[in-house]
């Protein structure tokens, strides 16, 4: 396979797998799983420093942001203003322009509030951010995000943390076909084969957190995802055989005795 470059915004990423750093038992396990996944970018959240516990271990002590790119998210934000505040703080903290916008609309489903998402995307792009946007799997809204200047569009496969896999392949395929920016499936991936399917559909990348963090053996699952994403990508680039209704023999009939 000739050099297959994955470029998002102004960054070239070695791996098409982006992993989350939440939900692990501890930071040591987080760091081990991230390493096993081979990911070159991880999502992180912005939260208050615990001023009462000065010895609390820090994520930055376990994951060196000089070696692995941090992608700050807006998890927990339910409107454009909250998410803008969070990402402006993130930019001040690390100096990164690349961020993940995630404006939630409903606590039960964690579905994105697309009206607020569109609003925030517009402002962030204007302020010079490279925005990767978590969104619904609506082809028209995905295209609208692209028009607004999103660096990548990240439709959900199914609800965040549900592990239900890709529920709407048709929508995802339409989004991919129409897109001129990278499409990264974010949310709902449950196991390695889900990631392979996403990549085979033509996604540019996959973002996974719970499926790795909540696996019985998170390190092994991280490695499994690494292989699954590579495998799916290779399969997509290779181009699959056409599906046929009836059987076609694999051995030639000529010379049959």
């Amino acid at each position, binding site marked *: 396979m000739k050099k297959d470059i994955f470029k998002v915004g102004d960054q070239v990423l070695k791996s098409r797998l982006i992993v989350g750093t939440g*939900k692990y038992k501890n930071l040591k396990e987080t760091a081990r799983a991230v390493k096993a996944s081979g990911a070159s970018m991880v*999502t992180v*959240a912005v939260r208050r*420093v615990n001023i009462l516990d000065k010895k609390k271990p820090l*994520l930055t002590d376990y994951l060196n942001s000089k070696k692995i790119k*941090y992608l*700050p998210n807006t998890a927990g934000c339910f409107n454009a203003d909250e998410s803008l505040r969070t990402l402006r703080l*993130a930019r001040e903290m690390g100096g990164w322009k690349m961020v993940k916008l995630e404006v939630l609309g409903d606590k039960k489903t964690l579905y994105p509030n697309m009206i607020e998402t569109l609003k925030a995307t517009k402002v962030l792009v204007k302020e010079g951010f490279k925005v990767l946007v978590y969104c619904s799997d609506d082809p028209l809204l995905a295209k609208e995000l692209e028009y607004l200047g999103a660096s990548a569009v990240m439709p959900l496969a199914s609800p965040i943390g549900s592990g239900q896999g890709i529920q709407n392949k048709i929508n995802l395929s339409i989004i991919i076909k129409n897109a001129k920016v990278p499409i990264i499936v974010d949310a709902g991936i449950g196991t390695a084969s889900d990631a392979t399917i996403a990549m085979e559909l033509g996604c540019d990348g996959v973002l996974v957190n*719970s499926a790795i963090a909540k696996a019985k053996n998170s390190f092994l699952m991280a490695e499994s995802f690494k292989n699954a994403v590579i495998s799916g990508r290779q399969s997509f680039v290779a181009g699959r055989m056409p599906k046929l209704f009836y059987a076609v023999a694999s051995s030639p009939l000529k010379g049959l005795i």
Partner: protein
Amino acid sequence: MAKIQLNGRKIKLNSKYSITTLLKKYKIDSKKIAVELNGKIINKNKYKLINIKNKDTIEIVHFIGGG
């Protein structure tokens, strides 16, 4: 003396504090955080220059694990 709100908690500061000295008091590495003073993000190179006043609301944030 200044009564301030720091990360949602009411705090009393008995002497004059800049943002830099406040971070030192809580043993916080200024490279790993961002500070918001009364809703405004403060540029890192201004931490030394800004004195904390009575009724200030300060938020100090950092990166944690997330998806």
